[in-house]
């Protein structure tokens, strides 16, 4: 990755000849990362096809842990820090973080949910006769709300920020607005992850 100087996006707020902001060059979707995504997808399909307890538990627990930690850390720790950064620092941080998020989050979420559903079928927790079925339905509702927020607000904002940053003269107001949407959304998802933790620990302890 090379660092490229772009014309300062701080046109609105500084003098006419503000120094250019160093912005790392980036791909909106990192192509090399797609190989890793494909590997995870193949292993996930193999785990579901084998229908064995260990691989299903591995994908569900490892994916779920990654999902929860990323949401909590991004929403409740990194989010407020990013909000207080200077615009050049925020731009640099965003160009390094967001392309990775484009690949990491859908992969982690797909692995967690797909393996979790198959695990539920195998263990019988998804069936309505299970004594803990109410907790499982509660987890569907929480995941459903999270999915709508992630698909409707978070992912589009993520892509739009990256497309904006790719422009020769990115508009800082647009980046600010979309990043605010991204961070607030991540915060809400982080709080909902706490509810997921409560449900999942209840389900695993019986």
């Amino acid at each position, binding site marked *: 990755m090379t660092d490229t100087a772009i014309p300062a996006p701080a046109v609105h707020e500084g003098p006419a000849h503000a120094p250019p902001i160093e912005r790392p060059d980036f791909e909106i979707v990192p192509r090399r990362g797609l190989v890793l995504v494909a590997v995870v997808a193949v292993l996930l399909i193999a785990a579901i096809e084998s229908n064995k307890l260990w691989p299903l538990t591995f994908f569900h627990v490892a994916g779920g842990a990654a999902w929860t930690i990323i949401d909590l850390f991004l929403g409740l720790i990194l989010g407020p820090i990013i909000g207080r950064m200077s615009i050049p620092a925020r731009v640099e941080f965003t160009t390094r973080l967001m392309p990775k998020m484009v690949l990491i989050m859908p992969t982690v979420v797909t692995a967690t949910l797909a393996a979790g559903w198959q695990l539920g079928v195998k263990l019988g927790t998804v069936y309505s006769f299970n004594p803990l079925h109410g907790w499982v339905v509660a987890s569907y509702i929480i995941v459903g709300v999270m999915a709508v927020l992630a698909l409707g607000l978070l992912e*589009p904002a993520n892509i739009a920020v990256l497309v904006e940053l790719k422009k020769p003269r990115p508009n800082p107001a*647009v980046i600010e607005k979309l990043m605010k949407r991204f961070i607030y959304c991540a915060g809400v998802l982080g709080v909902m992850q706490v509810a997921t933790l409560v449900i999942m620990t209840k389900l695993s302890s019986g």
Partner: protein
Amino acid sequence: MNERELPPVTQLGMASLALIVAGGIYLSAHLPRHVPLGPAVALLAASVLLLLANIFALSRVKDFAWDRFFEVAKWSLLAYVVIAGMIEYAFLKDHVSGGSLVVLTLSLAVFSVHVPMLMGFTVARYADSEERVAA
């Protein structure tokens, strides 16, 4: 930041997604018992109506950055068709059949069209942001 007036595509899209998610939860919460399909069909129909309304409202916007919209939406569509295909495979593997399979497949179709539409819209609505910086 001055923004032009645009139809509430994101809000309608999220409402449409919420309806199909609700339908999916309704169907899966009753497993393995027989599920009355009426509520799920009603939720799906409402979701499809919102999708059509959204497409209609967006198609009437003048001077919209359609090239940028389709540039993003076509790749998102490819990604979400793959995801929808994987979910469909899971349904078939779990022996979902009959009316439930039809409702879930159509829900996936709505999902795989509406999400790319939201991505394309969010990017395209800021397509002229450089001109606003220069202005």
